[in-house]
């Protein structure tokens, strides 16, 4: 089959690789019909995530049709399913508490050694996201092997378009959990750093949870426009002093809840960011953390910080004093996708949440490498690239993207 494979920094290619096969009883094989490039795939593309190997198949946002099942799978051939990016067994202590992304069992025993020294316990298993998270082949491919297929995938009713439900795999539940972790109360003002897909879903979710105002922060005008379309007020940090603006826009109190949807590759020319960048490039530190620092400092006393953003390692100059002295609550984590799927599928079906607005580019899988380049280089215009393995690769199709 054909699949998008990683070969190094800014080097991804569509290669021919062996088809996946059923190995364990609870496995299923899915023929991919739609798969998206995630903002966190750019962390791999930029070479920020350790324990990658040449030839690894990327992709953790995907859906498709069941073509083969193991004896222990509850899926049936022909079913259309969206697959969560987190792999969870459904039977360990953590899964029983619906902390699916903390599952004990989906990481091969040897891979568990990679993260334990850094994090204290082994990490969750994810599709297509380095060997620290299991080394599982991802879904930017024609087919994928899905372990524990009786627990993860959600069956999509006939007649519902792929584009409408694809984001149930990651970014919609991630944006929703980000808002939930912000413990929003009626009347709240919520500030969201980063208007990528997760930030934009967090904006929509925050309003659904009763926020009175949402303030969205980014520097890409198009992304701020999208946030405004959902009712958010906006701050462009290239034109505006973010902290000063947040204080003025909240009568000197600060936002009740702050959501950092930016993470380890924060853009922007700030003193701490430049220092972080020097350290990252010299291996003295691993993460650039401007957005979370600013969120903590701006947040009102006794407020809540939610951090869906991905961080991998260590930061310094972390405002621990502000966190303590102001009595803030900080909640974070990889998304417990399986926990949110049934309710969010309903919300999408009932049009309470808009998902398709996000897709700016649809391309054949064969053009995936170009999709990465576009997404990486044109983040203002390219909000989401969806790859369709079955799609025709005609010259007309390519010119349709606008940005080349």
């Amino acid at each position, binding site marked *: 089959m054909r699949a998008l494979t990683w070969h190094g920094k800014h080097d991804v290619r569509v290669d021919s*690789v*062996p*088809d*996946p*096969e059923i*190995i*364990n*009883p*609870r496995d299923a094989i899915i023929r991919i019909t739609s798969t998206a490039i995630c903002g966190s795939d750019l962390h791999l593309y930029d070479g920020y995530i350790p324990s990658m190997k040449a030839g690894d198949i990327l992709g953790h946002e995907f859906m498709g049709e069941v073509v083969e099942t193991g004896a*222990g799978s509850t899926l049936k051939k022909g079913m259309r399913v969206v697959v969560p990016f987190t792999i969870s*067994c*459904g*039977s*360990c*202590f953590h899964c*029983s508490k619906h902390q699916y992304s903390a599952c*004990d*069992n*989906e*990481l*091969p*025993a*040897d*891979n*568990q*050694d990679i993260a334990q020294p850094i994090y204290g316990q082994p990490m969750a*298993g994810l599709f297509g996201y380095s060997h620290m998270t*299991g*080394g*599982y*082949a991802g879904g930017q491919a024609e087919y994928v*092997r899905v*372990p*524990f297929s009786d627990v993860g995938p959600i069956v999509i009713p006939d007649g519902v378009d792929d584009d409408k439900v694809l984001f149930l795999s990651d970014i919609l539940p991630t944006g929703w959990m980000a808002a939930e972790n912000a413990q929003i109360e009626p009347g709240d003002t919520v500030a969201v750093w980063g208007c990528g897909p997760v930030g934009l879903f967090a904006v929509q979710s925050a309003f659904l949870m009763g926020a009175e105002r949402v303030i969205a922060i980014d520097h890409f005008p198009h992304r701020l426009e999208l946030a405004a379309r959902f009712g958010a007020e906006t701050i462009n940090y290239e034109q505006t002093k973010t902290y000063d603006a947040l204080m003025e826009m909240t009568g000197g109190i600060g936002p009740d809840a702050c959501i950092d949807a930016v993470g380890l590759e924060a853009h922007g020319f700030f003193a701490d960011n430049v220092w972080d960048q020097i350290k990252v490039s010299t291996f003295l530190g691993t993460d650039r953390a401007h957005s979370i620092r600013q969120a903590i400092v701006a947040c009102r006393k006794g407020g809540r910080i939610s951090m869906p953003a991905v961080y991998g390692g260590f930061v310094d100059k972390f405002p621990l004093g502000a966190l303590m002295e102001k009595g803030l609550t900080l909640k974070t984590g990889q998304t417990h996708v399986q926990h949110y799927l049934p309710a969010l599928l309903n919300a999408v079906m009932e049009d309470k949440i808009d998902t398709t607005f996000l897709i700016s580019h649809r391309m054949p899988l064969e053009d995936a490498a170009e999709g990465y380049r576009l997404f990486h280089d044109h983040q203002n215009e390219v909000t989401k690239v969806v790859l369709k393995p079955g799609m025709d690769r005609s010259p007309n199709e390519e010119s349709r993207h606008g940005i080349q």
Partner: protein
Amino acid sequence: MGDTQTSQRSDDAPLSTSKDDRREQVRAALVDPKGDTLVGKTVTINRPRAELYAFWRDFTNLPQFMENVVSVEPVGEGRTHWTVKAPAGKTVEWTSAVTEDQPDQSIAWASEEGADVANSGRVEFRDAPGGRGTWVSVTILYDPPGGVIGKVIAKMFQREPAIQARRDLRRFKQLMETGEIATSAFTRQQHEEEM
């Protein structure tokens, strides 16, 4: 875990986590101690104690999750013959006898005379607090082949018992909780090569 408290100890932590050498105390707690290098590890498994004990007590089950154990064959009178992978494509063998058997609680074993790697150990099954299933604790004493140098070489080939015990216990947990052992293999051929 054979954690006999002595007057020198002032906390409740297992002996295997001590900063000092506690091998003698571990040896003293085993019926027939063999070997000098200590491995101790505990894992929580979300299954009843009796089920885990029963699975382990049938030693022929162990190769299912013990990656380096090629085979365990009963040789009569509760004894078993073990064939285990060693570095550089070699195998080592020994015959083991059960030295202690408390149903649903613990099993201890020791190798007999003539073992390629003298070893002994105990697995203990305790109810985990809060209804979280069972704590499975394994203590192993062994003499590394070739002494300290052999241990370093084994570690290079990832066949060092401390690494192996840690990974085997994770696989035991996976098998008991999910009915299968997690793998990221893509094809069946790849999966066989990893075994």
